[in-house]
C-alpha cells in the first residue's frame, strides 16, 4: 500500500527505442507511476466499469435503460457472467497490488513499521491533517495552496475507499455468488442483508468514483478535461513542480530527481491514451446520469 517505489528512470530508452528520427522533446518528464501500477489501474477501470454496468442493470431493473443494457450484455445470465468475471479480475488486481507491496518491502529491506510510517506511505499522517486544514484555508481564501507531497489526502482517501469497497462489496458479492453454500452456516436473511449492502455500497463506489474521483483528478479546472498521468505514468516536470512542490523539493534535495526523468511518449500514444480516457470518462458519466435518472425520475 505504499507507493514509495518511484519508477526507476531508464535513461535514453525512448530515444533509442524510437530511433534517431524521433524528434526528442526538449523537456524531460517526471515518471510518477510504475508500469505495474498503470497496468493495474487500467484493469481496475475495465473491471470497475463492467461491474458497474452489469450490476446496476440489476439494481435499476425497473428502468427501461436497464432492460436495454441487459439485452446488450446478451441477457441476464451473460451479464451475470461478465459481472463475476470482472469481479475476479478486480480481486486479482487487488491481490497483485498486495503482492507488489510485499515484494517492494523485501526489495527495499525495510520493516513494516518503516514502510507504513515512511514519507511515501499511503497511510494518513500528520502532514495530511496539515494539508487538509491548509486546503480548507486555501479554499476559503485564508491561505496559500498547501505544499502537496507525493500523495495528497484525497488520493489516500480514494486509495482506502478501494480497500473498503473490495472488502465490503467483495464479501457480500461472494455471499450472493454462493448463497446455498454459505447458508449451511449462516441464516437465510443474510442473503437479503448482503443484497442491500452490496447494492448500496456499489452505488456509493460508482457514485464516488464517477463524481468525486473524476473531479479530483480529471475535471478540476487545472486538469480539465483529464489527467492522463495514470496511463502515461509521466508528467511534465514543470507541472509536477507546481502540483506537488513538497515531493519536488524532497527529490531535489536528495538529488534523486534526475533518476526519475524520462522521455515523453510519442503523440500517437498520448492520443490513444486520451481516447481511452474519454471513453472511460464518458461511460462513467453515463452511469451517473442513469443512476440519477433512475433514483429521481423512475424510482418506485
Amino acid at each position, binding site marked *: 500500500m505504499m507507493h514509495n517505489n518511484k519508477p526507476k528512470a531508464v535513461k535514453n530508452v525512448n530515444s533509442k527505442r524510437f530511433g534517431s528520427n524521433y524528434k526528442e522533446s526538449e523537456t524531460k518528464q517526471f515518471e510518477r507511476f510504475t508500469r505495474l501500477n498503470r497496468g493495474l489501474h487500467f484493469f481496475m477501470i475495465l473491471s470497475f466499469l463492467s461491474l458497474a454496468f452489469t450490476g446496476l442493470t440489476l439494481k435499476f*431493473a425497473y428502468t427501461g435503460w*436497464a*432492460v436495454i443494457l*441487459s439485452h446488450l450484455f446478451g441477457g*441476464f445470465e451473460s451479464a451475470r457472467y461478465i459481472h463475476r468475471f470482472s469481479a475476479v479480475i478486480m480481486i486479482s488486481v487487488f491481490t497483485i497490488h498486495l503482492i507488489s507491496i510485499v515484494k517492494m518491502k523485501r526489495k527495499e529491506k525495510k520493516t513494516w513499521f518503516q514502510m507504513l510510517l515512511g514519507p511515501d506511505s499511503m497511510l494518513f499522517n500528520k502532514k495530511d491533517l496539515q494539508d487538509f486544514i491548509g486546503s480548507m484555508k*486555501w479554499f476559503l481564501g485564508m491561505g496559500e495552496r498547501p505544499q502537496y507531497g507525493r500523495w495528497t489526502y484525497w488520493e489516500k482517501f480514494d486509495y482506502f475507499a478501494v480497500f473498503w469497497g473490495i472488502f465490503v462489496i467483495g464479501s457480500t458479492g461472494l455471499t450472493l455468488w454462493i*448463497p446455498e453454500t454459505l447458508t449451511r452456516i449462516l*441464516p437465510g436473511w443474510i442473503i437479503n442483508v448482503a443484497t442491500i449492502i452490496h447494492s448500496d455500497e456499489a452505488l456509493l463506489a460508482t457514485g464516488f468514483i464517477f463524481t468525486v474521483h473524476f473531479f*479530483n483528478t480529471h475535471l478540476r479546472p487545472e486538469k480539465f478535461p483529464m489527467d492522463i498521468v495514470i496511463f502515461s505514468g509521466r508528467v511534465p516536470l514543470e507541472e509536477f513542480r507546481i502540483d506537488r512542490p513538497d515531493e519536488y523539493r524532497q527529490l531535489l534535495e536528495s538529488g534523486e530527481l534526475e533518476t526519475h526523468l524520462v522521455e515523453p511518449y510519442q503523440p500517437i500514444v498520448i492520443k490513444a491514451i486520451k481516447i481511452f480516457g474519454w471513453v472511460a470518462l464518458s461511460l462513467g458519466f453515463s452511469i451517473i446520469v442513469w443512476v440519477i435518472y433512475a433514483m429521481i425520475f423512475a424510482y418506485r
Partner: protein
Amino acid sequence: MFFRNLAILILFVALYSLQLSFGQSNDDCLMCHSDKTLTGQKNGRTIHVFVDQKILQGSVHKDVDCISCHADLEGTDFPHKEDVEKAQCTPCHDEAEELFSEGIHGESLSRGDKLAPTCQTCHGSHGIIKVSDPKSSVAPIKIPFLCGSCHKEGAPVQVQRKIPEDHILENYSESMHGDGLLKKGLGVAATCVSCHSPHRILPHTDTRSTTSRKNIPATCTKCHVEIEQVHRKIIKGKLWELKPHALPVCIDCHPPHKIQQPVYERNVANQDCLNCHGRPNLKSKDGRSMFVDVLNLESSAHSQIACSQCHNTVNPAHVRPCEGITSKVDCSICHATEGDQYRESTHGQLFAKNDSNAPTCVECHGSHHVLRIKNPLSPTFHTNIPNLCGKCHRKGEPAAVRYVGKEHDIIENYTESIHGKGLLKSGLTVTATCTDCHTAHHELPHSDPNSSINRNNIAATCGACHYGIEEQFAKSVHSVTFDKNNTKALPVCNDCHSAHKISRTDATGFKLSIMNTCGRCHEKIAETYFDTFHGQVSKLGYAKTAKCFDCHGSHDILPVDNPQSHVSHENILKTCQKCHQGATRKFAGYFTHATHHDPVKYPILYWTFRGMTGLLVVTFLFAGIHTLLWLPRSLQWRKELKARHNSNADKTEKEDDDNDEMEDEKT
C-alpha cells in the same frame, strides 16, 4: 318337524297301500303341497313347494293333472324324490316349444346360459291364464315390461349379452307403437312379440327372423296391411330405379324402437318436389332462387330425409302441395334439444326479436347441403368453426360492431392463441374452438348465470378438456369452495389465461406477464417481490428466475399455513431446491418478498438500509462540500498557472533560465 313328517309318512304309506292301482290325483299332490310351510330341496337350496289351490283353480290348467306337467313324478312313491325336474310344457304345447328351441332364447337355454328364459319366465307356473285376460303376464299391455325386465337398459342381459339395440324399452315407449299401447291403451298396438314373434325370437341377421330385412315387410304388413298402397311413391318411384340394390324396407325409414311420429304428410315424395325445384332457373316471386341441387341433397347428412320431413307444412291435398308452406323450416322438430338451447341463446333471443343479424340454423349448418360435423367439408367441422363464427364476429362484421364488451379482435387473437395455433396450424381437432367454450347452440354472454363462460361455470368449461386442472383449482385458495366466508373477488381461468389470447404457459412472455396478473390483486406482495433479486431479474425480461407460480404453484395455490402448500414449512425446502439444488433449511430462510421499507416486519433489512444510506449521505456530503469549495479556488489556480505558463513561454528563448532556476533551487 320330524314328528310331523313321520306322521305324514305313516299317513301316506297307509293311503298308498289303498290306492296302489291308481295314478296320483291332484288331491294326492295337494295333500302335502297345500301346506304353506312345506319345503323341498332344489340344487341344494331349500325352496317353498306350496301350491296355492285357488290360483291353480283359476288358471287355464285347472283341469290338467299335476303329473301331466310334472311327468317325472308319475308313479313315484311318497315322499317323492327331491330335485324335481321343471314342469314340462311340451306334451301339450309342442309347437310353441319347438319354435322356442329354434329361437335365440331356446338356444341359449340349451347352451346352459343362466340368463336364458324358460316358459315359466314369461308365462308363470301354476297361475297361467289366457292371453286375452288383461291379468295375464303376457297380455299385450304387459309385454313391453315383461321383455323389458331383461332387455331394459342396465339389465344383465342388455349389459352382458350382445344386443345390437340400446334403450329399447325407452325408445319403444316413446314410439308410436308404445304410445298407442301404453298411453292410449290400444291393445292392438304392436308390442315386442308382434314384430319379434312370441317364441321363435331370432336376431335380425338370421334370415328366418321376423325382423330380418327380408321378412320385415311381411312382419309390418301383418298390421299395416294397406301400407304398400300408401307408400306407392317411394316404392314405385325413382329410388327403386336409381338404387335397385338399396330397396328400402320399413325400418330404413322407421327405425326400430325409435321415435317415429310422422312429422310429414304422407305421399309427398322428393321426386314430386324436384319436378319443379330441380330446375336451376326456378325463382320465387321476390327473385330468390328456389333451385334445390339434388346432388347436394344426396351427399348431405339428410340424404335419407324426405323434403316433406323438414318442409312439413306441405299438404298433398292441394294440387301444389307446397302451397301450404308459409314458414321456414323448423329443425327442432327433429333436433329438439338443440332447438331448445338455441331459443335460450343470444342468437335465438335476437332471432325472436326479428333481429336481421340473428343467425338461424342454416347460417351455420347450411340448408340442403347439411353435413355432419365430422365431415371436414362441413362449415361446422372443428377447424372451420373459427371462420364460421368469424363471419359475424370478426372485426368490422355485424356482431363485432354491435358488441360492447372488452374482447376485441376475437378471431385474430384466437388464431394467435395456443388453441388457435393447435387447431389451425397443427390441425389438432381436439383443440378448443369457439363452440367448445361457448357451446354450439347455447351461447350466452358471460354475465348470464347459465352461460358456459359465466365466472361460476368457466372452470367446468375449461375442465372439460383440461382434465385434472379443475380438481386442482377447486382445492386451491382461489376456489370459491375454499373459504365459504370469503368476500374478496376470486380469479377464474380466464383472469390469468385470458379468453382469446391464451398462450403457451411455457412462453417467456406469458411467464413474465403472469406476475403482473398476480399483482393485480396481490399488489403489495408483488411490489416487494420486485425488490428482490428474483423480481429484478424478471423485470429485466428474463423468465429463468423464480416467479410467482414457480414457488406458489399455479392451479394448486394454497395459503402458507396449509401443509399442502408449496411454500408451507413442510414443502418450502423442496420448492427452493427446484432451482437451488444445494439449498438447506437455513437457505429457505431467505425473505423472498423482503422490503427494506418495513421496520416492523424486516427490522434487520430496514436498519441495514438506513445504515447504508447514512454512510452514502455522509460520504457524499463531505466529498461534495470539499469539491464545491475547491471548484472556485481551482478555477483561480488555473488562471494563475496559465499566466505563469505564458510568462514562461516568453522566456523560452532563454532556455537556460529554467535550468538556472532548477539549479538555484537545488542549491
